[in-house]
């Protein structure tokens, strides 16, 4: 299958990241954008760009027919779905293939097998991969409560079609069951268009460890080692690393081989991830398979030196995997912090708006995958992740210290964001020691207490700002410039955008 011009059916940092690899490979790129995204970075970076409708994703990024139309108009012969949106939509994959457009992803049947968590679980069990105790099927509210009581609290409620923490709720006691279930169903419905929910045993202080796998169309399968993603807020990953401080070489091999059993069972093709929960005794349980590129793939790229998007394209072209299992490198350690437009002090509430100042860190072994720029608007319609900052070091502590320094250099103005939250994490003793579990952020220990040594400097700048505002007001004729808060005149250059 030729891949000479790729339509990227996505937006934000992942669209930009795919464009970069295509550029390096001499492949032309086609961006699509909603009306809210005309000025988005992926549109600026692509070789071609087409508007596909209004801001809500279901009227633009999720409309397969519009994407097919852009393929026809642009002559794109392949589609990269990124993650989210249509990346795990078997119908979309079929529609592209039917139109003669290569879908850079797995076979539609593999997506279907793994699309429902309950079906995926069946596959894993049949393939001989360990799973978490629980009830496989979706049921009524009443039956779910009965099943939960039988499994024993705490239990975890999960959206059958879900992912990314949406539609997921931990329930500690029967009294909380009804309200948590309602919330989970509500999120499931609005996120995935299906409110089916199932229940599982909740593992105490579990670690989230996942295996990156890669398969070609010729039946070759390899694993690119593990990532640990235990640092989560509201069941969504915020910090990822590779390798995992919990994994021994034996455990890595066991997990990798268990993951490949699942890959073989669904005749997998392309990039995929098998997610596991692990307990303190290094038991691991199949959680789900993500049949797409993950947000956190850069940490795997750091430790292996490989380009996962390039591999996706090679596989889509029908080529064989470039390396065998024994040839997959593993050197050093990589960290990734997801930078979100959100307020960590207010339960990670999203904070859309205009980015009035932006300066990403530079220097050695620091990688910033950004989807925004200074002056860009973070729209309220999509995921609030604005960039992924990753670092590499020969050891875990060096990667952490480099991340801490890089976060210190990062400057984002105009919106609330979680840079300072990540800084606290990088200095948090349990994190530095590798004592991770998925509930480690349940208590908001990162909230700033007292004044630090830089408070006087911060206040001095604010005083100068006030002083100059007053001096300007005094110098101006009365009545001019009214109607705008003076603090914002400053960024007057954005008014014309």
């Amino acid at each position, binding site marked *: 299958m030729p891949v000479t011009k790729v339509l990227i059916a996505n937006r934000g940092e992942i669209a930009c990241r795919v464009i970069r690899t295509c550029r390096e490979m001499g492949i032309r790129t086609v961006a699509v954008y909603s009306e809210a995204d005309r000025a988005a970075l992926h549109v600026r970076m692509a070789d071609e760009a087409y508007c596909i409708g209004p801001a809500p994703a279901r009227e633009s990024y999720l409309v397969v027919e519009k994407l097919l139309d852009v393929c026809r108009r642009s002559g794109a012969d392949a589609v990269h779905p990124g993650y989210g949106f249509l990346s795990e939509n078997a119908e979309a994959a079929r529609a592209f293939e039917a139109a003669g457009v290569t879908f850079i992803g797995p076979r539609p049947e593999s997506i279907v097998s793994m699309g429902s968590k309950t079906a995926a679980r069946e596959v894993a069990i049949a393939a001989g991969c360990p799973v978490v105790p629980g009830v496989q099927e979706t049921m009524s509210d009443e039956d779910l409560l009965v099943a939960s009581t039988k499994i024993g609290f705490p239990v975890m409620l999960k959206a059958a079609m879900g992912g990314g923490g949406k539609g997921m709720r931990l329930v500690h006691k029967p009294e909380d069951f009804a309200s948590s279930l309602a919330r989970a169903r509500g999120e499931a419905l609005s996120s995935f268009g299906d409110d089916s929910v199932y229940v599982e045993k909740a593992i105490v202080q579990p670690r989230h460890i996942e295996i990156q796998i890669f398969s070609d169309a010729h039946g070759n399968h390899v694993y690119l080692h593990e990532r640990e993603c235990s640092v989560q807020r509201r069941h969504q990953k915020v910090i990822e690393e590779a390798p995992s401080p919990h994994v021994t070489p034996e455990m890595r091999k066991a997990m990798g081989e268990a993951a490949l059993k699942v890959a073989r069972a669904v005749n997998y093709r392309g990039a995929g991830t098998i997610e596991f929960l692990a307990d303190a005794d290094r038991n691991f349980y199949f959680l789900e398979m993500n049949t797409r590129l993950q947000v956190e793939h850069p940490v795997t790229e750091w430790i292996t030196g490989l380009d996962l998007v390039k591999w996706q394209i090679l596989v889509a072209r029908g080529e064989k995997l470039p390396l065998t299992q024994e040839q997959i490198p593993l050197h050093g350690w990589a960290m990734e912090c997801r930078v979100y437009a959100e307020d960590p002090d207010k339960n990670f*509430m999203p904070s859309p708006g205009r980015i009035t100042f932006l300066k990403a860190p530079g220097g050695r072994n620091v990688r910033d995958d950004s989807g925004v720029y200074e002056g860009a608007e973070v729209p309220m319609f999509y995921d609030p992740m604005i960039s992924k900052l990753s670092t590499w070091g020969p050891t875990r502590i060096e990667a952490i210290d480099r991340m801490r320094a890089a976060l210190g250099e990062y400057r984002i*103005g105009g919106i609330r964001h979680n840079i300072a939250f990540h800084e606290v994490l990088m200095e948090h003793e349990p994190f530095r020691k590798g004592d991770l579990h998925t509930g480690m952020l349940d208590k908001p220990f990162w909230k700033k207490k007292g004044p630090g040594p*830089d408070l006087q*400097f911060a206040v001095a700048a*604010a*005083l100068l700002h*006030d002083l100059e505002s007053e001096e300007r007001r005094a110098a101006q004729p009365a009545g001019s410039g009214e109607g705008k808060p003076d603090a914002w005149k400053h960024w007057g250059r954005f008014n014309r955008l």
Partner: protein
Amino acid sequence: MKRTLTFGKEQHEVELLRQDGALTLVWEGEAHPIDIREVEPGCYSILMDGRSVEVLLDPAKSPDPDAHAFRVMVYDGVYEFALADPRRALLAGGGAGAGAGGTLTSPMPGKVVKLLVAAGEAVQEGQTLLILEAMKMQNEYKSPSAGTVAKLYVQEGSTVETASPMVELAAPDAG
């Protein structure tokens, strides 16, 4: 230009003096010569007491109309504080601490998917008032204090912008 700095629960008297082009920071009566350069818009390089600190200044919205609120990024994190004219602060009854009651505004643009209280209803601190959906997440919006719902500006399905009024609370004794 004396200012009252409110940082968390602390308050300080602070002042920045410009004389013959040179700046001095007066912090609770103690004077520090200070060199401040706005090296990029909103971004300042500051030298004081032998130290060099770069700060990114972000004017924020303040709950107190007489105070200027700031969010400031430095290498070591983020500070949030407010500066007020001490005379006005005095007139207003002092401090920037949020009392019970008042109008609660939306923290971000979104859609009210669930409204859990009715006008006239008594609410407890921490009680969920409504659920707001934005950026594909549902967020519970809780009452900052005990009180009574004096007025509702939204209903289920309403879309709101940042800082739209949503719920007006009256303090319990005023209800």
